[in-house]
């Protein structure tokens, strides 16, 4: 299921964030759908991307997913710093420290290969590094990252070679291979290690929608007189154009998709529950609610009865989670309630149903 969700994301991201200008693919301008620059409107997050977040936000033990969220946080944080410096007119510093490098990974995950002990063979790659590699492979496949061979030179040739190998399925084929053929010796982590001394790093692909996302999330919102939408030169406390941390949900979904590769898919039952809830709500005469007894029973059906109530409290902690409103049914005896879902959550399922009808994918 997370793989289908990822495919949906890829399509939603491309259609929402990217547009064609003079035959070239280009970012939409920051500031949201109400802004228009040179005839090109800003991003409409409400139609597909925010609903996708609401449908994919999971509440499994967040620690399980943290490493992936952190990698995204570093990639986004460094790109944001770079763009801030550019907005401030500092044209030298942006070349420095603008991506995630080997040292960052070591700080996060420790050493890549074991030194050897009674239980671990010397040279074995650590599980965390393998997870990072799978993440990078998926990000590169989706055009979300770029490889840089030194402080400011795009490693175009190496990246193209790697992409070719990814398209041929080499990482999956050679993942468990023995000896030199093993993918970990040839993949993205290996590139970072080999070229570390020259300043090799990974950057989030700003020209593939991420610059606009960063400016919409941390920059000036549209409509402030005298300030260009998305400008990062100073701190803004107003509600941003995009107030949902989409990059965390993407990190979680990627992690879940990778988990399914390793036969440990997290949040599987929660996905089923959310899907069933949305389907039941769309079948209700008002198309947006279910009876509270049904709500509890759906959690029980998927062995998660103990989690049902805490879903009402989740939004405090997690801006990406769907909001549930409890409404008492007037004059019911014994007293009964309905759970009303926010429109964005239901739109996630409606979008899926439309896609399923047009493409035949469940």
């Amino acid at each position, binding site marked *: 299921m997370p793989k289908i969700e990822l495919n949906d994301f890829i399509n939603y991201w491309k259609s929402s964030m990217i547009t064609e200008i003079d035959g070239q693919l280009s970012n939409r301008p920051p500031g949201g759908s109400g802004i228009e620059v040179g005839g090109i409107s800003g991003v409409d997050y409400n139609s597909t991307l925010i609903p996708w977040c609401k449908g994919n936000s999971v509440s499994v033990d967040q*620690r399980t997913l943290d490493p992936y969220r952190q990698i995204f946080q570093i990639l986004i944080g460094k790109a944001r710093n770079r763009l801030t410096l550019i907005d401030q007119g500092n044209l030298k510093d942006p070349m420095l420290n603008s991506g995630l490098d080997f040292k960052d990974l070591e700080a996060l995950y420790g050493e890549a290969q074991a030194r050897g002990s009674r239980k671990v063979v010397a040279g074995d790659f650590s599980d965390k590094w393998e997870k990072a590699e799978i993440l990078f492979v998926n990000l590169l496949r989706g055009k979300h990252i770029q490889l840089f061979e030194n402080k400011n030179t795009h490693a175009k040739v190496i990246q193209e070679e790697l992409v070719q190998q990814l398209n041929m399925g080499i990482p999956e084929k050679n993942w468990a291979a023995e000896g030199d053929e093993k993918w970990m010796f040839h993949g993205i982590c290996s590139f970072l290690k080999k070229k570390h001394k020259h300043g090799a790093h990974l950057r989030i692909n700003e020209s593939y929608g991420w610059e606009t996302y960063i400016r919409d999330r941390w920059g000036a919102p549209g409509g402030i007189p005298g300030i260009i939408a998305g400008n990062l030169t100073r*701190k803004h406390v107003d509600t941003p154009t995009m107030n949902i941390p989409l990059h965390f949900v993407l990190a979680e979904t990627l992690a879940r998709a990778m988990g399914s590769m390793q036969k440990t898919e997290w949040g599987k039952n929660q996905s089923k529950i959310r899907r069933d809830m949305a389907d039941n709500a769309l079948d209700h005469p008002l198309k947006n609610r279910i009876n509270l007894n049904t709500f509890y029973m759906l959690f029980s059906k998927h062995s998660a009865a*103990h989690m049902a*109530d805490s879903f009402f409290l989740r939004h405090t902690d997690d801006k990406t989670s769907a909001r549930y409103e409890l409404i008492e049914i007037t004059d019911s005896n014994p007293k009964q309630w309905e759970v009303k879902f926010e429109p964005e959550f239901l739109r996630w399922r409606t979008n899926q149903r439309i896609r399923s009808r047009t493409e035949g994918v469940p």
Partner: protein
Amino acid sequence: MRRVLPDNKPTLDYELWKSIVGPPSQYETVMKEDRHWLSQIDRGSSEISDLWMKEGRDRSTNDTTKVFDFISLGSMFDSWFEEIEYNKPDLEDRIEQKILSIDGAEKYFEGEMNSLLEINWIILGRVIGAAVANIGAAEKWWTRKGRDAYIALQFWSNLKREVVGQRYDATHHAKDSTILANGIDDDKWQEVGDFYRQIGFDPDSEILRSVGHRASSPFWQENHRPNRYYANPFAVIHQKSLFAKFRGVEDPEELSKEHGKLTLEVLGDALKCLRKRDDHDRFANFAIKIHGMCAFHIVRTDQIQQKIGLHLFSNLVARKMSRDVGGSNVPDIAKQLKTGFGLAKVLKILSDKNHKIIQWNAVEKEIVDNIVNDL
């Protein structure tokens, strides 16, 4: 299989408790000696324990009348819910006034003041879970010691130590809540982090909490250059309270064995303060204390601990807040929760008179069955 309420009608919990409360009132408080007895005889995971089956349990050692247990959120929480419902603007003003007098708070909560009115019940549940684990371990009921909370205690002290440098004095600086108010440089933050990452806890992951709910988040990294790190000032105040409690303990064990008890005492103190009607800032103080407890709790690794805290406690809160359910039957909770901890032991800890996080009552099985059959 049904224990108390029909599986397809769990929302009858509201009417059931309403009928039990009466008038006439049909419940009885489970007394201290019975709580102790039940905690001693409870065996196995909650869903298989004999105490919570559909047949009910004996009322006491010398009375075989069958009863069902019911638990409610401590009554002291009620006044908080009422304040939030009827007096929100005044509370908002009072908290904002309080913020002005706390070092570093204005900066930390800038643009996020509205988060201060919302308690993060899920994290509070985790705090309670870790405390219960620690108390039970001290009683030798189980082996889990609430290690999460202990690492958190150490981390906060080490962070202060790093910022103060050579002059650091543990006893003196535990009382100082201003040390972290001006932020933490990147190199110092990384240095502390490197040590903890080696033992499996990455402080950077906790920064992400500030995105969701600033009030209960432990740290925040400036979204703008120079991107300094800031600690939640409420968490630092909580640290001060914990150490003050520890210093007051007569004949204390080492802190690793005491922190659960101390944490629940601090929570109990916060709850008791809600009764002081002449103190107009009591709700603002309560919010600050609870946010501080939540922010202080930074390590979350133990899932069983989470079931106790997160699900048992937050489920009571959710039902109370959203539907005003005053009491929930324990057999149905035990069936759902499937916790590895002895549930009676947990209930004993949570209903302790020093904090009364929950109230533990019992109702005769026959009465309950009759009400349910009539609903």
